[in-house]
């Protein structure tokens, strides 16, 4: 505790001043004397003086005034001030403490009391110094942490943002409470047109919440690119999160599959607030509530996928947001879902304004200044050209492609039709053909049209005219599910043949089913004349392929796809 202090003392009474200086010097301290308040202020140097003693009553500037000026000059540094006083008036003394004095010493001086008080001040200074050192160490540590997090954030964003969120059909809003946040919005074009979207909200905030987003994004992008379907990707994500996350962590999410071929979307909601679907048919938005547990809770064997299908017309809109919006509190303390959001639910907000409007409400109610949870919103303007026109795979075409000749056949019986989706596997084999990978989206579209026709109309015997109304549309898919679940007999045969001659390459896709065929002579291939929802599949195929050939009374169909090599596009 022995510490030499530089002490500034100010007293206009020479004998008192000399006495105090003598007492302090006796303990080894360095003493600088001032004759009044003004003199003290001038002699005060915050970098060298560690303690100031001021007489209360002095000419030119009294002790209180001097104390205030010295405190200002000291700034962030802690310099204790002790008042010296002949008056024993409790009010005057308490004033000394009120304006920031540390203590006071009454005259006449008692050396014993001054020693005790000085010891107390030294303790205070030592404590203060320790605190300052800890504070500096802490801020250095924090700086390092923030630096590390920023580096990690770049990696994180490269993984989670390697997507097509810039598509003009999408608008998003994202406010995080930390450098990292537990909300993710992912979007990826599907190989056959359309898009997969996922808005996820992990338990908690910050780094611990963000870490689960990495495997999630990985599976989402990889599996979408390979042509897997939503109902295959969701269980895979669930299984992966279940196996890596601790029991108290999970991811509330909505998965949206935009299908442009039949102008519909599939919605899976696990733990997010209702998704809102805006169409012209109804004044209030249709709400799609959470029908599933969030991802990462259930083990794979009991996981179910409850999906809602809905048809759209171009211009309809879907709005999704995380519970950071739903559970935000307005200024009166009520949750948004019961107060501020009501006009949105009641259809009083124009759908294309919904996001701007929500941000405005969040700002007005002070939520954005002090967010308790990560906030994410996503608005999708639905259209039938999503993922088609803006699509750019960027795969360079090689001019020296090796010719390829091969064929294979793939037969799926009832069991396999029920439980598997063969398309990603078939596509993966086909895209190993040099040069064909650049056309994978068109090939996938042809393949998926042929397969769904064979399965739905051929094997399951569904009539496509059912789809002509939007009610009929969901009925159609319900019935598809039921018939597929009950399927005992039937098959779909896919055979693929790739041939090369000079620069010309031909892919022949033959798909045959066990159904009863159909009247293919009277199919209308003119897309522009057909306003119908359901006749578009074959017309689309006809446009994409070089040639379409039917056989076996409509049970079999071959699509020929030609492409050239050795030429510029």
């Amino acid at each position, binding site marked *: 505790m022995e510490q030499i202090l530089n002490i500034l003392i100010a007293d206009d009474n020479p004998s008192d001043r000399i006495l105090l200086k003598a007492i302090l010097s006796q303990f080894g301290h360095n003493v600088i004397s001032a004759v009044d308040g003004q003199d003290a202020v001038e002699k005060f140097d915050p970098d060298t003086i560690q303690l100031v003693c001021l007489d209360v009553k002095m000419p030119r500037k009294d002790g209180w005034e001097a104390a205030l000026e010295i405190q200002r000059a000291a700034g962030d540094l802690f310099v204790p001030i002790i008042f010296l006083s002949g008056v024993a008036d409790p009010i005057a003394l308490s004033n000394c403490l009120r304006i920031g004095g540390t203590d006071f010493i009454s005259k006449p001086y008692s050396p014993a009391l001054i020693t005790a008080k000085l010891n107390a001040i030294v303790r205070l200074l030592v404590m203060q110094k320790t605190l300052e050192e800890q504070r500096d160490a802490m801020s250095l540590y924090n700086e390092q942490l923030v630096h590390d997090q920023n580096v990690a954030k770049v990696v994180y964003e490269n993984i989670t943002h390697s997507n097509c969120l810039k598509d003009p059909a999408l608008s998003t809003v994202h406010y995080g409470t930390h450098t990292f946040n537990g909300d993710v919005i992912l979007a990826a074009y599907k190989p056959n047109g359309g898009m997969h979207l996922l808005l996820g*909200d992990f*338990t*908690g905030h910050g780094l611990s919440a963000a870490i689960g987003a990495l495997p999630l994004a990985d599976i989402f992008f990889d599996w979408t690119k390979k042509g897997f379907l939503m109902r295959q990707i969701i269980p895979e994500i669930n299984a992966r999160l279940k196996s890596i996350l601790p*029991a*108290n*962590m*999970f991811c*509330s999410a909505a998965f949206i599959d935009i299908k442009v071929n039949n102008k519909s979307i599939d919605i899976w909601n*696990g*733990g*997010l*607030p209702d998704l809102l679907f805006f169409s012209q048919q109804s004044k209030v938005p249709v709400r799609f*509530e*959470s*029908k*599933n*547990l*969030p991802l990462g*809770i259930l083990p794979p064997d*009991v996981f179910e996928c409850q999906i809602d299908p809905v048809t759209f017309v171009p211009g309809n809109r879907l709005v999704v947001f995380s*519970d950071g919006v739903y*559970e935000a509190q307005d200024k009166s303390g009520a*949750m948004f*879902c*019961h107060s501020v959001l009501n006009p949105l639910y009641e259809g009083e907000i124009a759908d294309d304004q919904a996001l701007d409007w929500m941000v405005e409400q969040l700002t007005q109610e002070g939520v954005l200044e002090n967010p308790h*949870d990560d906030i994410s919103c996503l608005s999708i303007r639905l259209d039938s050209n999503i993922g088609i026109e803006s699509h750019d795979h960027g795969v360079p075409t090689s001019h020296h492609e090796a010719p390829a000749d091969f064929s294979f056949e793939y037969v799926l019986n009832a069991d396999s039709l029920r439980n598997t989706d063969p398309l990603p596997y078939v596509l993966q084999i086909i895209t190993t053909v040099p040069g064909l990978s650049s056309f994978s989206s068109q090939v996938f579209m042809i393949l998926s049209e042929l397969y769904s026709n064979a399965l739905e109309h051929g094997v399951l015997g569904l009539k496509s005219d059912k789809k002509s109304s939007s009610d009929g549309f969901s009925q159609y898919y319900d019935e598809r599910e039921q018939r597929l679940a009950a399927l005992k007999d039937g098959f779909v045969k896919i055979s693929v043949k790739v041939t090369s001659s000079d620069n010309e390459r031909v892919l022949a896709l033959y798909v045959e089913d066990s159904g009863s065929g159909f009247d293919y002579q009277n199919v209308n291939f003119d897309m522009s004349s057909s306003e119908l929802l359901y006749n578009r599949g074959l017309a689309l195929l006809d446009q994409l392929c070089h040639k379409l050939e039917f056989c076996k009374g409509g049970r079999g169909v071959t699509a020929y796809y030609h492409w050239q090599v050795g030429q510029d596009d």
Partner: protein
Amino acid sequence: MVESSFDDKTECLTISIDGRFDYSCHKLFKEAFVSVNKAVAYEIDLSRVTYLDSSALGMLLLLRDHAGGEKANVHLKKPNGAVLDILKIANFHRLFEIEE
């Protein structure tokens, strides 16, 4: 505020939470069920919970795991409207018995 009591006769552990059920309750909530090994049934009294966030949902999952996962006997009692709403959005009625 987290309080718990164990009934030797019914071997039921009751945990009551008062006020906001969020991350600040994590330590106390976990201690409340980890410290009792003999419990065969659990009752979580939510009647005085004003708000519940996703980390509270996580804690309930921890408890469920501790209590035997699929076979766990966990009752969530008397959640208020807002709390029930959050539990339903998360579809927790499929994992827990909720008594309104």
